Structure formats: C-alpha cells, structure tokens
C-alpha cells in the first residue's frame, strides 16, 4: 500500500432498536468506531450484545437504525459486492457443488465466463479445496464447508470481508486449524476484515484491533490494540495477558472463579 491508511468504514453513533412482541428492545447504543483499509478488526462480546446486528447493518441487509454507517464516506443503502460475507452456518446452497456455490457469487460481477471460471478455481485453490470443486455440500465436513464459504466471500475481491462467527459452529481442533487458514488467506488477499466472534482467543490471534462490546444494550466497553509484534503465539505470555485483559473487561475473571461465586460476579 502506497497511500496512508484511512478510515474505509465508519460506524458513527449507531443505535438499533427492535420491536419484539410490542416491547422495545435496544440492541445497539451509540456505537462509534472506524476501520482502516487493510486492517483486521474483531468485535467480541457475549451473545446478545448486538454484534451480529451490527454486521447486518454494515452488510446493508438492515437499513433501519440510528446514526450512520459509511463506506468510503458514502452511506450504506444495500448489500454490495464490495462486501463479502461468511455466516456462522456456512450457508452453502445444497443443490450446487462447491464450485457452483463460489461461482454463484460472481453472477453480478459482469466478468466474462472464462475469467469467472479462473477466479473460482483460484479461490478454491486458495482455501485448499481445489480437489473438492465438484463435491456437494452434503459431502463436505464442517471444516471443509466453511472454507468454501470463505472462497465464495472472497471471489469478488471485496474491499471488506465480513465474518459473522465463521468458526463458531466448528469443533475446537478444526477451529484452531481454520484460524491459521483465515490469517493466511486474509494476509494473502490483503482484504480489510471485520470479524464478529465470542471467542477472545480467536480475536487476539487474528485481529489488529479488538472492539469489546458489552450487552443490554450493546455498546462499546473498550477498544484494544493488539500489539504483539506480529507474533501470534497462542501460548506466549503477551498473548495470554492480552486475552485475560479482554476477558476481564467482559466480566469473565481468569482463572474462573468458583461456581459458588459465579452468580455474584454476573450480577
């Protein structure tokens, strides 16, 4: 990158209220932060803190909210190919092969067929699943489906990769492996990434900056810079210190307190 990093995505005093069975439920209150081009930002928080809601606003799936979400200075009005998304459920279409699923994302790209085919092959290669191009989603394990979904999200070369708890449904071992993969892939593509997760280790491992949300209503508790000198060793003291710090902010003490005192801590 030759130009100075600038805010590509701005979340400006965003609030969101849902109407649940006639009751007002405030999901987000006064959220403000920005993401610079090329940055990897993670949003962590307990379930119900509105982090997925925030991602839907950035995606443009929901435009009814307070405040402004701007992309390169322009208000987001609808979904666009400049934002690729990976959902928690891989959401591959079961009636399309791995290849077909990735190709589906290129329908609106306007690229010639040959170029589309090349991009699909290239991105399946990138996530290490070139051999499974012709496989149906039902034949793929969770650890293989999610990389296909990542390839689908990246195939348009979006400016933003939005990740909505992408590894949340996977077993622990697969999750660790895919965290490494994700780090490699995002570095390779140079995309700006926004990861929503409740896994603090995952956030510390992947992100340059971590936005910590607290629930009821969802608001920013802190913003933490991850400054580990590019060293992402999951058992390094600096890594663990940062993780514990964030867990503290989230109200989870480390090491965990005895079960008897857990209720007192939660209150």
């Amino acid at each position, binding site marked *: 990158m030759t130009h100075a990093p600038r805010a590509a995505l701005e979340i400006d005093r965003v609030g969101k209220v849902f109407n649940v069975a006639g009751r007002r439920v405030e999901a987000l209150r006064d959220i403000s932060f920005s993401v610079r081009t090329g940055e990897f930002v993670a949003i962590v928080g307990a379930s119900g803190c509105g982090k997925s809601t925030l991602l839907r606003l950035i*995606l443009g*799936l929901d435009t009814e909210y307070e405040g402004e979400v701007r992309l390169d200075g322009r208000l987001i009005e*609808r*979904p*666009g*190919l400049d*934002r690729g*998304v990976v*959902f928690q*459920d891989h*959401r591959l*279409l*079961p*009636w*399309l092969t791995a290849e077909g699923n990735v190709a*589906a*994302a290129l*329908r*609106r790209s306007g690229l010639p067929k040959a170029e589309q085919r090349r991009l699909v092959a290239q991105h399946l290669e990138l996530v290490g699943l070139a051999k499974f191009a012709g496989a*149906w*989603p*039902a*034949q793929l394990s969770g650890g293989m489906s999610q990389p296909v979904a990542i390839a689908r999200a990246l195939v348009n070369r979006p400016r933003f990769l939005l990740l909505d708890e992408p590894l949340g449904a996977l077993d622990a071992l697969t999750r660790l492996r895919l965290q490494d993969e994700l780090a490699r892939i995002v570095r390779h593509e140079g995309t700006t990434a926004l990861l929503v997760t409740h896994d603090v280790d995952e956030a510390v491992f992947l992100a340059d900056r971590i936005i910590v949300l607290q629930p009821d209503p969802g608001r920013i508790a802190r913003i933490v810079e991850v400054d580990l000198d590019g060293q992402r060793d999951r058992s390094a003291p600096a890594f663990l210190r940062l993780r514990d710090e964030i867990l503290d902010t989230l109200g989870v003490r480390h090491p965990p307190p005895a079960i008897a005192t857990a209720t007192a801590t939660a209150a």
Partner: protein
Amino acid sequence: MSALGSSPARPLLMGVLVPVLAIGIWQTIASAHLVAPYVLPPPVAVLARFRSELDGGTFWSDVLASLTRALAGFAIGAPAGIAFGLLLGLSRLAGRLVGPIFLAYRQVALFAWVPLLSMWFGGGEAGKVAFIAMAAFAPATVNSWRAAGAVPAPYRELSRALTLGRLDHLRLIALPSALPGILTGLRTALIYAWLATVGAELFLDIAPGLGGRLNEGRDKFEVDLMIVALTVLATLGLGFSQLAAAAERRSIRWRKR
C-alpha cells in the same frame, strides 16, 4: 436414505402377514358355506377368474385404457398445477389475488365437478381426462405453492448479500429450494390422477377401463370380476406411488445419500 423402511426382509414379511391371514379367513368362510358364493366367491374362484380374464377377455386393453387416461390427465393437470402453484408462491401479488379463490375451490369436493365437467366436455374421453386433470391439478398446485413460498430466510438473505437479480434468484435459490416440494406435489398428483381415473370411469359414460369392468361386475352380479378389478387397481396404484417415490429420490441428487 436411512435404515428406515429400506431393510428388506422383515418389514416385507410383516406387510404380507395380514393379507395372507385375511385370505385364509376368507377361504374358511367360503369353504364352510357361511356366505353364498355369488355374494363372496372363494379366493380360488377369483384367481380362476383372473386367469381367464388374462387369457381371453379384454382385460389388458382395459388396463391399458385406464392407464392411458390417468397419464393423459396427469400430463395436463400436474404441469399446470406446478406452474400455477409457483406463480402463487413466488409472486406475492398473485398469491393475494388468486390464492383465496383457489382455497375456495379446494373446499368443493372433486366429485361435485362431475356434472359441470360432463356438460362442458361430455361424458366421453374428453370429460374423463378433464376430471382426472383437475384431480392432479390441486395437489400439484398446493405443494408447489407452499414450497415456493417457503424459501428459507437464510437463503433469501444470502441472495440479497450476493446481490442476485430476480432471474438468478429464481434459478439459483427459489426453484431449487422448492424442488423437493414440487416433486412431492407430482407424486401426490400421480396418485390422485389414478384415484380419479376410476371415479371418471364409474360416473361418466361407460368405456373400456377398469372402472367399466367394475360397473360390469355389478350389473352382471359377478363379484369375482369386481374383486379382480379392485385388486388390479390397488396393485397398479401401489406401483405408481412406489415409482414416483423412487423417481423423487433419484432426481434430488444433491441430497445426502
């Protein structure tokens, strides 16, 4: 598919048990002369009648006539029903405009249409096929309508995130997601068409066909002929539904096998 219903030997044996038992009781009743043979002929007599029908008579052409009628009605009614159902499910406007009328139509028993249809199309072949087509139309419509209207929200969201156009949404998301429902509709339509075929043959003009043989059995007081016709109807119906279910399984190749 899973082990359910596909493990061969035992369920088959159990399924055959009751019919065999029933035939045994039937034979006992007949042998003991508890009922006059012209009211309930013994199984052996029915079997003999079946053989003589196969050898001599018009039986094969009757079966063929009924099958042809059923398939003709199905071929008209089912595709029309699928098209109509998809329209209702995919277009909110069409669903609101036409949906209530269709639901009202469903409240009228199928046989209530016989007088009107026979006035419009006559009691001959055209009237019969029209009746069968109508019978196939309804389940094809209902199932396609429901399936097309129930594209899962996550897929609709994905479609928006990928900014798919209307045609791509139909081709890549809405239609494939409705396919299992459409196929269920086709299978049900096939069964309904077969049921309606006998109805048409019984209530409209006499013509070659299994329904006609049933009428003949009643007029000539030949219970053996009626039992033969009923058994063949049931067997062919069962065959239809098995065939349709197999075709349904095979055509969705992306399902986990």
